[in-house]
């Protein structure tokens, strides 16, 4: 039975030793090479052509993301599994875009690494469960009042106040610049929000983006 050939890249020798014993303990896997920084990793992988390269993304000199890109470019048959201490989903996305087939947290590597190596060796993608479920409630909200936008009549003042709020101005400051009372601004705001079914400032900003009131930075 030919064993799965695994290359390990991590700049912490004790961690690397632990990963090695974990992999070597599997009957169907063997560690064929190791490296302690990104440049060594790229060299080692190109030379040894492993099936899977487990790469720590925060190594010195050439970083993990760059090493991943180089490996994918020069020997695309090698599957790269990113290993990291950073649980931020954004890091995972960065590495997947660089060509990694999977993302494993160091914190749970003892439990998950073997499964992750098998998954990516088979051609699949592995995202650590600790990272996968994030952002669901936070990013990419569908816009609520999209359809109603064109049909509603906002007075000039109501539109002005809404635009200024979307641009991040405080009510007190809006009142001062329009030379009216805070109460007046609050009324315009409330009326506009009611007409457009906008409940929060986030809703207001989304409406403003749709209307083209906010120049993109």
């Amino acid at each position, binding site marked *: 039975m030919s064993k799965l050939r695994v290359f390990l890249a991590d700049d912490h020798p004790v*961690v690397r030793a632990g990963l090695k014993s974990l992999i070597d303990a599997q009957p169907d896997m063997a560690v064929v090479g190791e490296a302690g920084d990104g440049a060594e990793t790229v060299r080692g992988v190109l030379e040894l052509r492993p099936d899977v390269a487990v790469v720590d993304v925060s190594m010195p000199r050439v970083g993990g993301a760059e090493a991943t890109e180089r490996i994918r470019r020069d020997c695309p048959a090698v599957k790269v599994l990113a290993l990291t201490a*950073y649980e*931020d989903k954004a890091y995972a996305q960065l590495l997947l875009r660089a060509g990694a087939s999977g993302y494993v947290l160091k914190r749970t590597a003892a439990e998950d690494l073997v499964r992750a190596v098998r998954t990516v060796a088979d051609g699949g993608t592995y995202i650590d469960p600790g990272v996968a479920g*994030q*952002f669901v409630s936070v990013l990419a909200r569908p816009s609520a009042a999209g359809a109603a936008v064109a049909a509603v009549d906002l007075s000039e003042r109501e539109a002005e106040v809404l635009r200024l709020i979307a641009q*991040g101005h405080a009510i007190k400051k809006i009142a001062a610049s329009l030379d009216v009372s805070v109460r007046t601004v609050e009324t315009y705001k409330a009326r506009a929000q009611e007409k457009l079914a906008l409940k929060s400032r986030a809703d207001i900003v989304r409406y403003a983006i749709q209307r083209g009131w906010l120049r993109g930075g």
Partner: protein
Amino acid sequence: MDPNAPNPADVPAPDNGAADSLAPRVWYQEAFEFAPDGQMVTDGLGLIREANHTAAALLRCSKEFLAGKPLGLFVAAGYRPRFYECLSRLYRGVASESFETRLARAGEEPREVVVSAHVLEGGPGTDPRGTRVFRWLVRDVTARKRAEAARTELLQRLVTVQEEERRRVARELHDSVGQLLTALRLAVRAARDSAPLPPPTTERMADIERVTDELGRAVHDLAVRLRPTALDDLGLHLALAQHLADWSARTGVEVDYQPAGIEAVRLPADVETAVYRVVQEALTNVARHARARRVSVTVGRHDDHATAAVEDDGVGFDPDAAPKAGRLGLIGMRERVTLAGGALDVESSPGGGTTVIARFPLRGGGGDR
């Protein structure tokens, strides 16, 4: 004629020049001349009619030189429009005005001053400007301004140093402590796998693994709370998105995050840090006090400003009521925002939720990094 009547030649002259009423007048004269503030009197055109000693010293001129000169002459270039606006308003009937400005001195640094002006004689209307009388009080605040600037600079450096320290400690936690915990966890796993173990030992091993896992999580959370690496590596937008996701999961409060113009372009580092900290602290307050169900977080870049607003639908509070320093942490937040060059506004009413808004001018920094 009465021989006892005093000789007219011996009777002292009537009171309006008498020696014993001279003392208070001299005293008032001296009080005017050496008052702590510069005092001047001009006509409606701004020509100096009188000046006290302090004013002359402040302007580094003799009193004789000042007489008849336009006061505006001594106002530093660039600050003159405000002075003439004041003069104009006094002429039109405003009773008094107060403003900050700079006075120019021959061959020397300009002085920062606070000027207070009021009308002494003449009303609005047809009185020609030459007959009006305006009084000007000039207070030299240069030393105070310098001290304030020095204090602000010191506080800014303090904030920077604090963030750098947090960054260092967070990295240490990841790179050193975190790594060792990973190694520990792998070693326990290797021990468990190395040979068949009797059940009690297996259970003890499972305990060790559980504790190590918890340690790993605790260290990670601590590092992120100190300073998330994403803030440096990936930018404000992604770091905030992560923080909001974590906070929402932890507190059970729904978060609606809407960025505008910050997804692709970075802001200056100190502004990104300040915005992150404001949102972080605002959310801490929401968790502690607001009893909110939903929070809306909007962060955007518009023209030359970056803004952030955290709006909750919780219990709100009365912003006019005396703020207790520790209770809402608003004073610390306001100071932080000011040091980064921004302004903080808090809108709230009892039962009406709370909105914290921070706004920072951008000095042409940022851009892709």
